């Protein structure tokens, strides 16, 4: 266990060395939040609420969705693809640790770094510019934190899956790009899932994506009521378990038929 925790620490320190790169990131996210802030206010116009959310809840939703993205988002899929392409994965496989778990830990180190140096100060800055509703209820914050952990795990698992697919496709930069675009829409980053038409919501109930952004953001803005929160978090947990299955299967097949290109 110690070596995995050490990995989180090392990745955190690595990111810390390049922390100045992140100041512009906060600005970019703020620019995006700003665009959606004006757009949503225009959409609401004089309507009091849409799909049970007020304009203020919506801007808070957008802000927290982007700042939470800074935490769960990482390029581990691209890193894995790179290591497979360069043949480094062969060396990784003989090292005395679980490769996928190690990658997860690196992602976590990155996430913790961004949470403290990106999401947190970013949220403070955004709250100074735009009106954002923060809950006063500690239970909401606690549930939000729990949901955020699972949102990280689900996103991480999807990244691992995409990364492992490189074993079979060799060059999957296109797949990685496409995955990112799809997650932005279907995870509820761009707009809440409740804004989709009924049939689309039905389909998305069978997909893991809404666990990434929709669930934590809805909890943060208190747009979910009582039992909905518990239900949503449980759904996240179920997905974390379900996703283990395809990852392990593909990983086993991939290791058996590994072809190292160069190296």
């Amino acid at each position, binding site marked *: 266990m110690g070596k995995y925790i050490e990995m989180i620490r090392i990745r955190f320190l690595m990111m810390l060395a390049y922390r100045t790169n992140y100041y512009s990131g906060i600005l*970019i996210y703020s620019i995006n939040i700003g665009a959606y802030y004006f757009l949503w206010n225009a959409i*609401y*116009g004089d309507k009091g609420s849409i*799909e049970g959310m007020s304009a203020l809840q919506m801007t808070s939703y957008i802000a927290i969705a982007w700042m939470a993205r800074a935490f769960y988002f990482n390029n581990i899929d691209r890193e894995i693809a790179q290591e497979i392409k360069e043949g480094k994965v062969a060396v990784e496989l003989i090292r005395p640790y679980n490769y996928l778990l190690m990658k997860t830990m690196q992602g976590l180190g990155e996430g913790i770094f961004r949470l403290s140096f990106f999401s947190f100060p970013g949220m403070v800055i955004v709250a100074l510019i735009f009106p954002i509703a923060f809950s006063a209820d500690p239970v909401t914050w606690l549930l939000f934190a729990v949901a955020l952990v699972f949102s990280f795990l689900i996103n991480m698992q999807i990244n691992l899956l995409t990364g492992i697919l490189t074993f079979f496709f060799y060059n999957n930069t296109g797949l990685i*790009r496409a995955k990112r675009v799809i997650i932005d829409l279907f995870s509820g980053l*761009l707009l809440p899932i409740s*804004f989709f*038409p009924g049939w689309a919501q039905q389909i998305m109930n069978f997909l893991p994506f809404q666990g990434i952004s929709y669930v934590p953001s809805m909890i943060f803005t208190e747009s979910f009521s009582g039992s909905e929160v518990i239900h949503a978090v449980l759904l996240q947990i179920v997905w974390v378990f379900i996703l283990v299955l395809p990852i392990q299967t593909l990983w086993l097949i991939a290791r058996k038929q590994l072809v190292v290109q160069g190296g």
Partner: protein
Amino acid sequence: MKYTQLFFQYAAQYMKTRLTYRTDMVVEIVSDLLSQAVNFIFILLVFGHTSMISGWSREEIIFIYGFFLVPFAIFGAFFNIWDFNERYIVKGEMDRILTRPIHSLFQIVLERMELESLFGVITGIAVMFYAGSRLDLTIAWYDPFVFVLLVLGGTLVYASIFILIASISFWSDSPTSIMPMMYNIGNYGRYPVNIYNSIIRFLLTWILPFAFVGVYPAAYFLGRENWYLYAFLTPVIGLVFFLFSIFMWNAGVTKYRGAGN
């Protein structure tokens, strides 16, 4: 003459290299299409809950987005020099560029072109026809010419902003982070400017004139007469900003000192 000839030779060469890896190219075009589709779906979803956004209907917003795609695609094909600082200044590649007997910026445009981005022109025009037919827009004989003129204006706006930022690299060495920021600010131009507050509207019109890539020129085709003045300013703004950016580029090149080594 020499420049056009060179351009076509480079373009032919580019096609050859790209066509060697056909699947890569197809995948790239498909993932571009996918992100355009996501933006399109976003507009559709939003209008499932409202009929107007600041006085603009669903079809009008879709039309503006379609128009925006055209100059953006041309810009992406030729002026996508977001990595100029890293690629040419830090690595000292600019030395090689300066020994070539054509204008340095033109040489870089030739080297950095990404012709597959032009696919967005087709998507954009298709989106405009879709929205236009639902709005019962009619096309006058001169409209295609106006369209070309306004698209050129919009492309020049985008190009000049990126050239200006690239030029900063000649004086200072850390503007790499400004480039991605510009893409995000550029997205503001996809929606009508009257949804923003007056400061941002002023900024998008006169300082970083991204509004001239989407709303303003599109307003002409949508018959929004109160915006006509801005619509016809598009080529003027494009040209003025472009000349200014070329001037700054040329001034910057004289300051270039090489990367050592």
